[in-house]
């Protein structure tokens, strides 16, 4: 089954040993499944906190949370678009790698990293605003503050890790670690980055929209 997941099939002349690199094909399948399972369990970690937040919000807490008058939805929407945009650029980075188009790959990869950093800066701006202008803090604002800062903080941590991860991947690809047929690292990086985006869809919805 693993053979089919190679985008172009590993054709003669590309692999190290002159033919289908069976070892790569099989270990790639292992690593892909392992990585997806890791993302699933990471997703459960977020889900638990999301569940905790929604549970407490619906059990006798008054809503919107007293003392929290404003959340900057407009800015958060903008910041979300930045992050979602980075998901799209990441997708095209991988596509271009698959099609052997290194120049465009590099452009989209750098765009992804830059958008990721922009998102983090936006997050920092929002935290400062909340803390200094709205007096919403992690430990001092009841369940809203606790959930908001824990969840977005966890997400921000994931984005930070992602930015570093993608930078490393990019440097590796510049140094020729990946080939047209063997680029599982890039696939994993893309999966991770998409995962981070998708988690943000959930967080954005629960904190700003409902």
């Amino acid at each position: 089954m693993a053979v089919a997941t190679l985008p172009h099939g590993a054709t003669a002349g590309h692999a190290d040993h002159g033919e289908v690199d069976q070892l790569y094909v099989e270990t790639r399948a292992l690593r892909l499944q392992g990585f997806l399972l890791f993302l699933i369990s990471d997703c459960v970690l977020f889900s638990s906190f999301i569940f905790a937040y929604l549970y407490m919000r619906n059990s006798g807490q008054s809503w919107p949370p007293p003392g929290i008058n404003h959340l900057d939805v407009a800015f958060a929407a903008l910041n979300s678009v930045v992050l979602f945009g980075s998901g799209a650029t990441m997708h095209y980075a991988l596509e271009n790698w698959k099609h052997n188009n290194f120049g465009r790959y590099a452009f989209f990869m750098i765009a992804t990293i830059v958008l990721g950093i922009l998102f983090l800066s936006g997050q920092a701006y929002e935290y400062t605003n909340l803390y200094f202008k709205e007096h919403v803090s992690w430990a001092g604002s009841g369940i809203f503050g606790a959930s908001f800062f824990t969840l977005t903080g966890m997400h921000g941590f994931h984005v930070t890790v992602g930015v570093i991860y993608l930078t490393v991947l990019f440097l590796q690809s510049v140094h020729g670690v990946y080939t047209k047929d063997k680029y599982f690292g890039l696939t994993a990086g893309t999966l991770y980055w998409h995962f981070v985006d998708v988690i943000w869809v959930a967080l954005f919805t629960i904190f700003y929209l409902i």
Partner: protein
Amino acid sequence: MSTTVEHAGGIADHIHPEPQGFIRRYVFSLDHKIIGIQYLITGFVFLVLAGLLAEVIRTQLLHANGGFVSNDTYNEVYTMHGSAMVWLVIIPLITGGFGNIIMPLQIGARDVAFPWLNMLSFWIFPVAGLMLFSSFLIGAPVAGWTEYPPMSLQAGPGTSMWAAAIFLVGVSSTLTGINFVVTMFQMRAPGMTFTRMPLFCWAQLATAPLLMIATTALAAALAALFMERQFGVPFFDPTKGGSPLMWQHMFWFYSHPAVYIMILPAFGMISEIIPTFSRKPIFGYKMIAFSSMAIALAGMMVWAHHMFTSGLAPYLQLPFMILTFTIAIPTGVKIFSWVATLWGGKIHYTTSMLFALGFLALFTLGGITGVFLAAVPFDLHVHGTYFVVAHFHYVLVGGSLMGVFAGMYYYFPKMTGRLMSEKLGKWHFWLFFIGFNGTFLPQHWLGMLGMPRRVPVYDPQFQFWNDVSTFGSYVMTFSILLFFINVLVSIRNGKKSGPNPWGARTLEWQIPSPPHYYNFKNIPTVYGLPYDFSQPLPYKGLEEELTDSPVHVGAH
């Protein structure tokens, strides 16, 4: 799936040479068998420590007014007993230990999917264990292994240490779960379809997702508790807007599946042992495999039955109650299938088989009292009493720990090449069986009569049965001492076992004991279920395993 993969040049032919040097071979080993044995050794060391804590508890309860240790020490002791037994003994022994040693051999793989990750998950575990026990130095946690806030928020600094240690154990479990799922999905030998997989592997396959998913939910709860204790983030403290019930939801969302993590692999072990010693195919292979999955799935959805008295809305109690009842159906099917496997067999009374039979009887009783507890009205009476204590010890000691012992006697020859002493083993079994029932049977009616859990002193009218319980526990402890003597003596002086002392038919018994570093000289091809005693073995390609022919090490 992998049956169609040509193995030329693939993982199956990728044999690394065995590493040399003590450290690489036995300490930071990548070999699943060594890692499994490391889990077993560490787990048994923690079993001794947690068992001694249990004896402190029972000795304190010898007298109605206690007096053996102070109340605070007693609270620390039972908390650490529970936490250590669950997270440092049963789960590592039964998943990390037996899962690691047996599962790759049974599916015909050379190792697990990610050996390095496997080593990492092992080494996290003793570190976490030491952390947990070192919390005694700074004032161990007191609020029981469930650590309900706000009690756990008031308690001493050890509680944060507890949360951190359990978090680490959780990481180790999660990584093991990921490793096992991928191994079983990707690395089965050719022809080893899911419907030909031994039942122990099926049990591990049902357990691994629980390890992966439920444990992560626990990690979230522990992180929240840690943040609240250390940084005052209000998750659970009601005076700051948190909810104490929230913890109970998050905790039990893990800890109910955790009981299936602890019992399903034992089910798997029993499903291997009973057919082997009855010389019969397992009765209803598909039903047993399917019911493991059904139990794992349903087990994820019944957590709130631990909270019937804590303030769950009455209407929410009903679905949890009924769903919990339904778990009795697949469990019953399993038990009936094992009993039917005995019928018409040629039963060999090895110690392993005795433990398997003891498991059947005791687990049945524990399962029945589990149904009692699932009924909301009866639970309103016995929740938080010794009845609950009796129930889960029947399931975890009479079930899981009996399964561990059965597995130890069964697989000891595979691990060491030597047999354990049957004579000592039978003493171990009978003393354990008697001591166990003496300890925990009276606790059923103690609980119903009105003795709550987690008390250092109690109503004097209960003294007699508590004394029976305490003496039972001494007998049980003595029998476990016999077990350890047996292990230590047999490692050096046990009879040589040969590759297959029990006449078993699963793959791991067709190779030398202990197996070579690379497990199989050639990966076999599988043609059928392993349990057909009337048929020739359903494997091809094993001809060289027991010969001296060299293996081509170092390809690649």
